């Protein structure tokens, strides 16, 4: 399979960038070429794994910590956000 053209086509195939007709031709070629089939399968799986990753959790706790860091360094934030930060960080003794 070691062929630059195939390699480029597989790159496009894995990224879903090939036209339908070319995709089908490449899949047909892979039927008789184990290396090509493996390259297509593993690269597609890699891209799918990346696309399916939901990413880090961005929750209220994270947001409050970021906003607090910004405030501690002098940033003024709008009232609604200000309230959120104050709400999260009550002093231990409240009147």
């Amino acid at each position: 399979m070691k062929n630059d053209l195939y390699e480029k086509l597989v790159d496009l195939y894995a990224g879903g960038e090939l036209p339908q007709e070319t995709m089908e031709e490449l899949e047909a070629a892979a039927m008789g070429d184990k290396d090509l089939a493996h390259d297509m399968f593993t690269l597609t799986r890699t891209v799918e794994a990346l696309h399916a990753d939901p990413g880090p959790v961005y929750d209220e706790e994270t947001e409050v910590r970021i906003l607090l860091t910004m405030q501690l360094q002098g940033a003024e934030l709008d009232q609604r956000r200000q309230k959120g930060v104050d709400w999260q960080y009550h002093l231990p003794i409240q009147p």
Partner: protein
Amino acid sequence: MSGSQKDETLAERRWLNALAKGDTEALGGIYELYGEKIYRYTFRMLGNRSDAEDATAETFLRVLRRSAELRADGAFRTWLFRIARNLCIDRMRQHKLIELPSDAHYTGTEERTTLRITVHEALNQLPIEYRDPLVLCDLEDVSAKEAAEILKISVPALKSRLYRGRRALRDRLGGSIEKLT
């Protein structure tokens, strides 16, 4: 352009104009638009929560410090990602972050979490020139054109790095890629 993109553009213009006129509280509005996106990006680049939180906060503080220069010309988002990226690179140089630190947190089943950590570990071992396009295009769904602008390279160069990066990641994942569904 979709309705939500239009709304985002209008809101961006409003907050940037306010910030440029000295309304420092407008930073909260800009954070509301882009805070989560920048956090997700910095987390992907740095691999841990505390560094990502610090880098995100610093990104927006830089916006504040340069507020007089800001123009609502459509390039703000690209500029913001560029600042975040430079901060991530500085931190990576400082800490030589290679392994996934223990405070990274993931949700999902144990099996999926393990596989995701494998992907993240492999990603963190890639050279920055490959990690950059993978994080922007494959993980954060930034268009090739915008990713190229953020990285200050041409679109063909970006695509070349993206394709090489995918292959490099696949090679690092080895046999475990076949378990990923």
